[in-house]
């Protein structure tokens, strides 16, 4: 049972997606767990054949309990241990790994005979003296850990638990429903489309879940402000070029293929994080551990209250169109309450974009153990000086909160400047292989 919340001590195994005999690959969703705040799809980082399910559906067990036995494909020898992707990397719904007090978490040295993906920077993986501090970055495969396809063996209808319940409530035969979710999974929307349009609105989260989420957010933000010495920087970005480029990009495209300005902002941050890795990683045990990949946390507000900040994996390596597609999907699932454990545990830096609600700029709160948070306010027409003249341009104020233990203002300032460069050269955003120039011709001397 992975720990997926700051104060999560137990979870309920809601639903198994596999049965003994199924073959699973890294990233396959094997179960759905209820954390009392959210339902999270749990992925396996152990590939192999499901040998035995140890916990039955509906059972509540402490964090760290073995849920199933998976035999690795190569050797066939059974490996006892939970197929938990969070091998010591618990996270809250707001996306920050924290130790579950008192709960045993699987140690990083759990036996895995099959050599799996490269482990992240050595630091977090070594057993710490004292209370185990779970490593925040998981031994993820180089490719994003999305479900990699149907398990070998019998074809099964992929359906989310919410959709399954909706189908039961509405009397819909799921074998007749076309799935539009990830890997063809049937979503609640797919089920409801089968019915006539005038249907009752989907139920809001229960008061208990809302209260639990509020508490989780509160605990995490309080911890952040207690432990992280934040400093704040801001920068004005001229968005005229980016918006013009975007309108041309979208002009001939059907609505489904259009890219939002928000995706450009995320792309700029992701690429800047790759170029300046001091902002992309974690503060663990008194030192900074750079993350190996850029998994961009995206703060998503939930209707009815609440906030999650799940990860867009490898955001720096995706084209703008891919990033937009992933973003749409992530937001959809975040708001449907069906996120994956890797999305909860993997963010390496987070972006919060509050401009549409009206704010001009955001003084954000970093999600521990990340070391930075980028904020964007509203894109609006503002006076802009260029060439000695003042005109009006669409601009956005980008802000940066940084953990001063991890990086000084100099690094933060360069990072914001890198984001601005990317946004002011929008062509660069669409080709993730093109490095952004790191020197602006008009700047002063580089430090020695």
């Amino acid at each position: 049972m992975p720990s997926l919340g700051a104060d999560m001590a137990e979870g309920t195994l809601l639903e198994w997606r596999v049965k003994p005999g199924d073959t699973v690959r890294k990233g396959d969703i094997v179960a759905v767990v209820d954390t009392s705040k959210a339902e999270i799809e749990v992925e396996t980082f152990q590939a192999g054949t499901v040998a035995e399910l140890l916990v039955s559906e509906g059972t509540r067990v402490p964090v760290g309990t073995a849920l199933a036995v998976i035999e690795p494909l190569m050797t066939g020898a059974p490996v006892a241990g939970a197929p938990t992707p969070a091998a010591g990397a618990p996270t809250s719904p707001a996306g920050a790994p924290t130790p579950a007090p008192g709960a045993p978490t699987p140690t990083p040295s759990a036996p895995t005979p099959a050599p799996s993906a490269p482990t992240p920077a050595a630091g977090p993986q070594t057993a710490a003296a004292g209370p185990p501090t779970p490593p925040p970055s998981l031994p993820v495969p180089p490719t994003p850990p999305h479900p990699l396809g149907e398990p070998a063996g019998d074809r099964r209808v992929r359906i989310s638990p919410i959709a399954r319940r909706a189908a039961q409530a509405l009397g819909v035969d799921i074998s007749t429903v076309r799935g539009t979710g990830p890997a063809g999974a049937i979503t609640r929307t797919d089920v409801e489309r089968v019915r006539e349009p005038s249907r009752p609105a989907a139920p809001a989260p229960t008061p208990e879940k809302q209260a639990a989420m509020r508490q989780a957010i509160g605990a995490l933000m309080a911890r952040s402000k207690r432990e992280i010495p934040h400093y704040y920087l801001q920068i004005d970005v001229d968005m005229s070029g980016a918006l013009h480029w975007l309108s041309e990009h979208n002009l001939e495209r059907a609505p489904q293929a259009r890219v939002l300005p928000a995706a450009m902002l995320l792309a700029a941050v992701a690429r800047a994080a790759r170029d300046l890795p001091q902002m992309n990683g974690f503060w663990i045990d008194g030192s900074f551990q750079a993350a190996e990949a850029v998994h961009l946390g995206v703060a998503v507000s939930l209707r009815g209250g609440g906030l999650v900040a799940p990860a867009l994996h490898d955001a720096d390596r995706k084209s703008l169109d891919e990033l937009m597609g992933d973003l749409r999907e992530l937001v959809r699932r975040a708001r449907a309450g069906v996120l994956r454990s890797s999305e909860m545990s993997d963010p390496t830096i987070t972006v919060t974009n509050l401009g549409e609600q009206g704010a001009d700029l955001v003084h954000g709160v970093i999600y521990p153990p990340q070391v930075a948070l980028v904020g964007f306010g509203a894109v609006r027409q503002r006076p802009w000086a260029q060439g000695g003249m003042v005109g009006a341009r669409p601009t956005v104020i980008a802000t940066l909160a940084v953990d001063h233990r991890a990086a000084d203002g100099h690094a933060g300032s360069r990072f914001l400047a890198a984001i601005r460069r990317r946004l002011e050269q929008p062509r660069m955003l669409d080709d993730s292989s093109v490095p952004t120039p790191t020197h602006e011709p008009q700047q002063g001397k580089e430090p020695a």
Partner: protein
Amino acid sequence: MNEHELRAAVIDAIVEVAPDVDPHTIDPGASLAEELDIDSMDFLSIVVALHERTGIEIPERDYPQLATLDDTVAYLLERD
């Protein structure tokens, strides 16, 4: 599609992104963005849903014309 059908299509698209909104009591003059708390991602989903349902493709430059439910229905009626 007649006005009634178009209105139903728009309401369905709104409720799909905002399931907490009661379809029977949407204020037709309320700002989708501010009063129904619909953001650009939601709005794009609405545009996609309307395209699928009505066949009408709404270009980006026309987005500002779709500020309320009434505005959206009027826009679609002109183009149906």
